[in-house]
């Protein structure tokens, strides 16, 4: 079990490195595809089955195909002749390394167990923002409700207005993309 986690993490990390350091954009995109597959397996193992399915369908199936179309639409010579690395790469590398070590040290030594107890205690008596109305909106607990049912209960209960805002965001994004890519603006 632990070996599987380690292998999955190594797969995700190596593919992420491949995204950043690959020479051709096609290699970057394929590497990112494998990385997203690994992340989807991670979601599946963390009992987020619906999100894992959405990750594979929308990310790996939709967004990556969009990126591949974008790469194909741009002339290959232009991509190959583009200088790969910025002149500020080394300072950025040092900066990101320092950030990673410092913040990673903090994250590693944080306490991840104290919080859920306080949340569980806080949800019982009064209704703090999210949790209680979720349990009110959730389907009645007749046995074990599946993961999509739970996600839908929260998504269309507590987060109905953000859901509508996301649809408006996607509409604006589509109109903006058409406007930007049009021949004559």
């Amino acid at each position, binding site marked *: 079990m632990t070996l599987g986690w380690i292998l999955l993490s190594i797969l995700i990390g190596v593919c992420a490195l491949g995204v950043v350091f690959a020479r051709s954009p096609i290699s970057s995109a394929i590497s990112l595809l494998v990385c997203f597959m690994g992340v989807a397996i991670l979601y599946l193992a963390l009992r987020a089955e619906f999100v894992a399915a959405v990750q594979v369908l929308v*990310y790996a199936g939709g967004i990556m195909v969009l990126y591949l179309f974008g790469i194909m639409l741009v002339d290959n010579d*232009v991509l190959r002749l583009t200088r790969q690395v910025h002149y500020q790469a080394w300072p950025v590398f040092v900066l990101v390394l320092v950030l*990673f070590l410092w913040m990673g040290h903090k994250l590693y030594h944080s306490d991840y167990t104290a919080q859920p107890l306080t949340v569980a205690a806080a949800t019982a008596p009064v209704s703090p923002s999210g949790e209680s109305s979720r349990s009110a909106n959730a389907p009645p607990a007749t046995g074990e409700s599946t993961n999509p049912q739970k996600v839908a209960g929260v998504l269309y209960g507590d987060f109905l207005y953000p859901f509508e805002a996301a649809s408006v965001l996607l509409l604006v994004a589509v109109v903006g993309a058409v406007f930007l890519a049009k021949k004559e603006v």
Partner: protein
Amino acid sequence: MSTAAFVMLGFLLFCLGLFGVMARRNFIVVLLSIELIFAGAGINFIAFSALWHNMAGQVFTIFLIAIAAGEAAIGLGLLIALYRLKHTANVDEARELKG
């Protein structure tokens, strides 16, 4: 695997994406690095959702995927526009805010 390991993995993806955004010149690779940052945030959401047994993290990951889809559409529109105007994919060429 503990929550700390998931958070560290998400932070690793964030750092790699940050490096890619700032150090690469190719516009497509910059966009892909932004997707890496999104993936790191998603791993964080799912890890804490599993830790606290709270579905809000999974719902926010779905919102994250929707936002990433919008970002991909706008970014590729910008790429096509940049390629049409300057015949390049180098982000440093896009320094004038006019056609």
